[in-house]
């Protein structure tokens, strides 16, 4: 249902992942987009090794944070991060590249996993793994269904439906076998017999490669999907693969599915088989005038400016720098911010493309309704948001909006539909939370 097909512009597709040089300093954020910030367990002057715990998870919906490099903690302070806020982070001056004992850094594949379900879960939780699909939700939470709920299948999100981005694609081509082992481990944790890998068919090499590997892993099935944004949305992907629609306000486990991003699966493999916490990831650096579009292995906490430097610098005609994909990424006011676990890409958008066109009257063409993957009426929600009609917005299911931006993308009158809907969602969400509190 709904959806759009923006020009793919995957300039870095098929390029080998380049290991970025070690930076001189890293700034590791203690909080990620979703979940409680972790607490620093190191202080100024401490010597740390790569992989060492520096931030302890604060509660269940929170994730551990580890040093991504070895060196000396220069300070624990606030730092402007990708969210646009100043938040706590650990600053480390890099000295050498020494890893904590017990972490296996060689690239040798380990297939066998003899750990029990509980041990695996503990390793995933200890390793501070968060979902790499965008929301950076702690992975161990999704792997622990609430009492009475049971998954019957695992769905791997390898859709990468955002244009420009190729980091998942590159990972699948280079770490296919590891991903298969990671899937097996995750299936064991969830006690499911079936796993589907959803890949859009603009990545035939990845479909082919994983398809061949899947023959040796019973229960794993590759599902090629038609290219369509936002198919990588959790609810959309479940619908596309197993034809079950997660009802409004519910989570995937209620229809028996658990979705994990393919990058998260690789991180699970590393945590369980190599005892390696989540301290590095693949980042796509791209854009129409990017000098050297490519995929890079980057340590968490490397400043974006350094990542940009490694890939040839910021092009002169850049008008906007986006962290992530063009449809859901955040625009940055500076590159002096650290990469986080959830940083998927740096995208340079040309100035003329970055400028919004003048807003015209809504001509009621229905295109926003047609493309909305949730079956909402964006034109109506925007009108209601402009007029502060919060109860009406709630009745028209504004909280179902996944903020994919298809409505704004498609609007012939250049109306900022999602801006207004997001604004309305914030207010309506607050009203709903207050109502729950009052009832209690």
């Amino acid at each position: 249902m709904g959806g759009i097909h923006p020009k793919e512009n995957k300039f870095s597709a098929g390029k080998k992942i380049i290991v970025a040089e070690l930076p001189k300093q890293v700034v590791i954020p203690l909080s990620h987009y979703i979940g409680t910030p972790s607490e620093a367990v190191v202080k100024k002057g401490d010597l740390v090794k790569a992989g060492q715990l520096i931030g302890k998870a604060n509660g269940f919906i929170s994730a551990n944070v580890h040093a991504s490099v070895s060196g000396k903690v220069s300070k624990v302070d606030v730092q402007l991060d990708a969210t646009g806020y100043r938040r706590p982070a650990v600053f480390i001056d890099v000295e050498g590249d020494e890893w904590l004992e017990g972490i296996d850094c060689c690239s040798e594949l380990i297939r066998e996993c003899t750990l029990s379900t509980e041990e695996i879960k503990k390793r995933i939780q200890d390793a501070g793994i968060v979902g790499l699909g965008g929301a950076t939700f702690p992975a161990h939470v999704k792997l622990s269904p609430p009492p009475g709920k049971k998954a019957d299948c695992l769905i791997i999100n390898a859709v990468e439906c955002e244009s420009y981005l190729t980091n998942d694609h590159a990972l699948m081509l280079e770490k296919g076998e590891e991903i298969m082992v990671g899937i097996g481990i995750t299936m064991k944790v969830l006690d499911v017999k079936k796993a589907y890998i959803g890949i859009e068919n603009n990545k035939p090499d990845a479909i082919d490669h994983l398809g061949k590997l899947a023959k040796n892993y019973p229960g794993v099935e590759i599902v090629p999907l038609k290219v369509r944004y936002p198919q990588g949305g959790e609810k959309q992907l479940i619908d596309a693969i197993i034809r079950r629609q997660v009802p409004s306000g519910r989570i995937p486990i209620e229809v028996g599915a658990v979705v994990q991003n393919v990058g998260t699966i690789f991180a699970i493999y590393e945590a369980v088989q190599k005892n390696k916490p989540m301290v590095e990831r693949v980042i796509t650096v791209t854009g129409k005038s990017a000098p050297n579009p490519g995929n890079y292995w980057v340590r968490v906490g490397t400043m974006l400016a350094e990542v940009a430097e490694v890939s040839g610098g910021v092009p002169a005609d850049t008008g906007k720098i986006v962290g992530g994909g063009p449809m859901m990424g955040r625009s940055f006011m500076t590159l002096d911010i650290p990469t986080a676990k959830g940083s998927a890409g740096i995208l340079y958008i040309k100035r003329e493309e970055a400028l919004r066109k003048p807003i015209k009257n809504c001509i009621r063409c229905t295109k926003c309704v047609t493309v909305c993957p949730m079956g909402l009426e964006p034109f109506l929600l925007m009108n209601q948001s402009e007029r502060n009609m919060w109860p009406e917005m709630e009745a028209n299911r504004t909280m179902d909006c996944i903020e994919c931006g298809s409505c704004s993308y498609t609007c012939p009158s250049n109306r900022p539909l999602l801006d207004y809907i997001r604004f309305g969602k914030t207010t309506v969400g607050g009203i709903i939370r207050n109502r729950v509190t009052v009832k209690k």
Partner: protein
Amino acid sequence: MNMEKLIISPAPHIHGGDSVSKNMTGVIIALVPALLVGLYFFGLGALIVTLTAVVSCVAFEYIIQRYILKTETSILDGSAALTGLLLAMNLPSNLPLWIIIIGSLVAIGIGKMTYGGLGNNPFNPALVGRVFLLISFPVQMTSWPLPVPMNGSYLDAETGATALAMMKSHFGDLPSTLDLFLGKMGGSIGEVSALALLAGLIYLLAKKIISWHIPVSILVTVFIFTGILNLVNPELYASPVLHLLSGGLMLGAIFMATDYVTSPMNPRGMLVYGVGIGLITVVIRVFGAYPEGVSFAILIMNAFTPLINTYIKPKRFGEKAK
């Protein structure tokens, strides 16, 4: 790279490039086959009527925005030109200039600008203009020139009854079904050729300017309703094929009822709207005083559009199938 000049705005950061003028131009292109057939059968008169309507609609929009509302002009988005073209498509080719100009003024002035311009009008402006003329000048608006290929006459064109009038009064020789399909019959400039209008429909669907829901639901409803009547009494009621091919049904279903601004906002609503137009059209054609009722049917359903939008919602994701 000057970081201080970076643009900061919320996602999405790209736009599909669609625009109001692209959609309006698309509809105008889709009307070209029907216009060419009109020019072929009604000659010079069709050319004069079309040019007058288009020029006066654009001129009235400009004058009203520039001198009365004192706002920026929007004539470049193509919507005024499209209103003029649609109005001309709904007029006989021997209509005097002054009547066309009045029709254009009503269409743009009353039908569109009084409500706040494009996007705010509840009724289809071209039809507001046409129905105003039909009620005010019934004689001129219902004397239909006969199709004479490539003729050079305008006001003095030879006239005759339309197929619908013949069906209603049961006299005269109806044109053959093939002539009806190709457009060799009396009628408004743009309505005669079902073939040309269907070509326009295919273009509109291929370019995703409109969806199939409105035209198909109207045509199917008319076909079924008139088919039932025809089965009950073939002597009294014309065949459904004749109903589909004659009068303004094709033009109305494909180009007038699908007007963005005045039609419902989701597929379910569009089906209700289309069925409503089909039913009202047949009721007027068969039981009413006028031989043709498409314009009235569309305007009546335009009035129901806000109600349809309020009570008929799109299929929500995760909604249980009933």
